[in-house]
């Protein structure tokens, strides 16, 4: 290896590739429940949000949403402690579609066996680290709210 090669960015070319989308459906709610509490049965306590299990656990579904980011995640609680946290869906989009119901609709019924291909077909991303702080804060809120549910 000798030296470096310089590549001068034509500004227009970079802009033409703006608005990529990265979206993956990792787990359905059912799959996430089975991973967290493999042999338990679930009783819905708050529709679509909180379940109690026959083994004494609690399963809470939540999401974070921003202009360009939507994350569905599940928190499993056992004995007042976080048992596990799983991301069910993760999507980044820069066309502003994240809030649109029709755009969200395309994910309904997808399972982890059918990863989504959206826009530029981006499956793996490297780059400056994205913070998971919003999810971590959400987990704390959920633990405070439901940790002592019996």
């Amino acid at each position, binding site marked *: *290896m*000798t*030296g*470096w*090669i*310089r*590549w*001068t*960015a*034509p*500004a227009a*070319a*970079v*802009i033409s*590739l*703006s*608005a*990529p989308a990265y979206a*993956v459906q*990792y*787990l359905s709610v059912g799959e996430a429940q089975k*991973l967290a509490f493999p042999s338990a049965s679930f009783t819905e306590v708050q529709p679509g949000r909180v379940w109690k299990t026959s083994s004494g656990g609690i399963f809470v579904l939540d999401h*974070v*949403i*921003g*202009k*360009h*980011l939507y994350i569905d*995640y599940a928190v499993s609680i056992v004995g007042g402690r976080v048992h*596990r*946290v*799983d*991301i069910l869906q*993760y999507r*980044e989009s*820069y066309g502003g579609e994240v809030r649109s119901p029709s755009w969200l609709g395309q994910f309904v019924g997808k399972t*982890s*066996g*059918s*990863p989504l291909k959206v826009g*530029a077909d*981006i*499956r*793996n*991303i*490297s*780059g*400056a*680290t*994205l*913070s*998971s*702080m*919003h*999810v*971590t804060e959400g*987990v704390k809120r959920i633990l405070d709210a439901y940790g002592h549910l019996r």
Partner: protein
Amino acid sequence: MDISDSVRRTQPLLGTFVEIAAAGAERGDLQQVIDEAFAAVAQVHRLMSFHDPHSDVSLLNREASTRAVAVHAWTYQVLQMATELHRQSAGVFDVTVAPLLQQRGLLPRDADDPAPAMDQRSAEAAVELLGEGRVRYRRPRTRIDPGGIAKGFAVDRALDVLRQHGLTRGLVNAGGDLAAFGPEPELVHIRHPANAGQVLGSAAIANAALASSGRTFDLLQLSAAGDCAVFDPVTQRPVRGIIGATVRAPSCMVADALTKVVMIVGEGAESLLRRYRASALFVLESGDVWITPDWQDAVRLAA
């Protein structure tokens, strides 16, 4: 690899999103192996978190200035590589920059800890490895944060778990620091360091690791969250001029650490990259990209 045979999952760990994909076994078995791989990442997190008072790193920062402290084999392994890179990079790679990050509020500090300050620079490494997993600091105010290398190490450990189970394909991506094995190369898009919504280019990664550094982004607001979190230990200031760096290397621990060196010294990292059989690109504020020639065929820039 047909993706219908693969399982892909994500958990929030190491302050970012860790994604693990695997193929080559029954679905239920893949889920179990992936759980085990996440557990390896979680263990690295527990051992090396600066934030967790029970981590090896916190124990070292509290006590290693006054006595030799025994740490987990993984922590020791990371510190071995960190001190080797410190020596090989003439002090540019430095896990003892923690006080600079504390001064800027990028890392927390204990109320009873004196005002954070980096010790006088010296050619001698501030961290002394005594063998048998024991570590001592040479100076009283030394504080380490292995965040610049531990994430890559966590990726390597998780990928080891997938390999040990004889899977045909595996990929671990910890917020952009990733490694993969398998019969087909993995296509990885590289985020533009100036704008999370843009793609700089893509690289094919086959049985290798890729890591990137730059500013952190808050995707809820799509804002660059302020300063670059890579500090130049010589000027003791955030890196300027270079806004992002991406490195391909045989292991993710090395790739992760070398991104910091490339962020700081740019072209000056050439011989170090060669020593560790690594390739790199970096992006200047002007938008210009510099890339090592051995990598230009595997990287497609967005043109």
